[in-house]
């Protein structure tokens, strides 16, 4: 898949149309001009979501009614589709070739992996960020998994209410069991599906993990079920059924669900030590890049095509040596979009990139390699 061009109206401070390069695209400009907004627009086009905010109406330009993000996507040499996301008030509509489409059909046309400051939560934040990372990955392979997650969260919400009621109304254990059992029954099935999907996904990641891309330290990952040490995980369905039975009283006392994959985690170790607690911020960034690259490879092995890779403020997140390694690795693989405010970085990579200068939300110049090589004399050859 290839994003050939992108046209944006009233999305944040952006306007105008840009034709992207097939390989590395460098979005360059001073701070506050809208570089990240362009990445966000690409991410929105691919996923219908923002990597910055849950409330998309914030992204409509002030005093405007309708924001439009429209892109031309080449699915193959012959097949091109125009994808479009409209934001109007709190409603979002999505279109393919000018016709409204369901989300299920829209997703999967274009896929994007984003490396942003917020995503660093995956390596240094709470387990929730890591569960989301895994779930995003599973969804990129099986869209139907979205429903499994939605059902799971719904059942947990319903059960939590019953657990609260049970302690407030001082129900007997038998009474509580009677009303909670129908929900636990579904939890067993849904938990098993989620457990299996995540374990499978982490195995796939492990198979392609470039453990030593940047460092001498060895990075390993492992799915950590909250039921670990409680019994035979290979028969997860029987194990969780037993745990739910045994722990009902504790769950009532707590007033919320204690058992299930919403308590699981992804362990990220470097040389056997926990990244979250012991990694330097440079190591954490490297680890996240390595995880993102693994997610990209897993996607490629499954779909036989690469997703887009978006890297926000590449300079702030990685040092030059790592950026070089990374961009070299990506060459010939993904269509990559990076933002930077450093002119020296542009000069360093201009020979193999399309460069777009952003000012006040607009792309004011796009330079093809030939043009820039002649203007950035010498530096292109010195790589």
């Amino acid at each position: 898949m290839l994003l050939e061009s992108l046209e944006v109206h009233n999305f944040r401070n952006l306007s105008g149309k840009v034709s992207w390069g097939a390989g590395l695209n460098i979005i360059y400009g001073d701070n506050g001009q809208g570089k990240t907004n362009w990445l966000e627009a690409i991410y929105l086009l691919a996923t219908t979501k923002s990597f910055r905010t849950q409330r998309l109406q914030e992204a409509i330009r002030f005093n405007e009614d309708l924001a439009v993000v429209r892109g031309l996507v080449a699915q193959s040499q012959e097949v091109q589709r125009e994808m479009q996301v409209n934001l109007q008030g709190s409603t979002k509509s999505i279109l393919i070739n000018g016709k409204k489409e369901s989300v299920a059909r829209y997703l999967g046309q274009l896929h994007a992996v984003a490396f942003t400051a917020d995503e660093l939560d995956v390596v240094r934040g709470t387990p929730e960020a890591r569960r989301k990372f895994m779930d995003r990955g599973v969804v990129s392979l099986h869209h139907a998994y979205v429903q499994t997650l939605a059902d799971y969260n719904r059942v947990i919400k319903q059960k939590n209410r019953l657990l609260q009621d049970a302690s407030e109304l001082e129900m007997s254990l038998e009474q509580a069991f009677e009303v909670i059992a129908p929900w636990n029954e579904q939890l067993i099935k849904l938990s098993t599906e989620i457990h299996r999907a995540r374990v499978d996904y982490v195995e796939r990641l492990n198979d392609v993990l470039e453990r030593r891309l940047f460092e001498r330290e060895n990075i390993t990952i492992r799915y950590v079920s909250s039921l670990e040490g409680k019994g035979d995980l290979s028969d997860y369905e029987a194990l969780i059924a037993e745990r739910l039975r045994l722990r009902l009283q504790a769950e009532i006392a707590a007033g919320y669900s204690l058992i299930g994959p919403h308590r699981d985690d992804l362990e990220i170790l470097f040389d056997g030590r926990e990244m979250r607690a012991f990694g330097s911020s440079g190591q954490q960034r490297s680890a996240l890049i390595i995880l993102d690259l693994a997610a990209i490879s897993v996607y490629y092995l499954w779909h036989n095509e690469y997703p887009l890779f978006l890297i926000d403020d590449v300079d702030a997140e990685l040092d030059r040596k790592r950026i070089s390694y990374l961009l070299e690795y990506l060459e010939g693989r993904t269509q990559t979009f990076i933002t930077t405010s450093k002119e020296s970085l542009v000069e360093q990579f201009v020979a193999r990139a399309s460069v777009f200068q952003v000012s006040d939300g607009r792309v004011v110049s796009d330079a093809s390699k030939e043009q820039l090589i002649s203007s950035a004399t010498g530096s292109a050859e010195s790589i």
Partner: protein
Amino acid sequence: MLDYAEPVTKLIDEFKRLPGVGHKTAQRLAFHILRVPEADVERFVEALREVKRKIIFCSVCNNLTDVDPCRYCASPSRDRSMICVVEEPYNLVAVEKTRSYKGLYHVLHGSLSPIRGIGPDDLHLANLLPRLKPENNDGVEVQEVILATNPNTEGEATANYISRLLKPLGARVTRIAMGMPVGSDLEYVDEVTMDKALANRHEM
């Protein structure tokens, strides 16, 4: 100050109470009422009155009806050994449209949803268990109870709850299958449905 004269505002407010009706629609409906002949309005009012006056719950199956027991429960041609449990009267109509089900029904008028405060006691469930006794069913023993609640988490929980109640009584309890809509091309089936259909595939 009110935008419209009091009687008009009152009417708009009443329309706004209806499900799915927002301010603009309510306004349009109110002005429609103002334009139509009085006889039409009378007919409408009478229809509203009549439905409230005449429609009751069937004392056997809880379906909406104007005679008790309802036409299904009273019909001698229905198979009294089967009961199909549905959430809402319009779900009953959907099953009935198949013309292949000839048994009886039981309407719950809802599904379990703790977050909306709906527990087993809020469903019309109390009169289901007694129906399984032959003496309450024209001497016929119920062989099978089909749980046709909706295929979402609330419907699943409701079906599960009922099956736990019924199993000890010895009746066969079944759940309707989920999967492909018939008569459509595979390509028009959404992925979640397709996924379920694949998981529930059967030997040929």
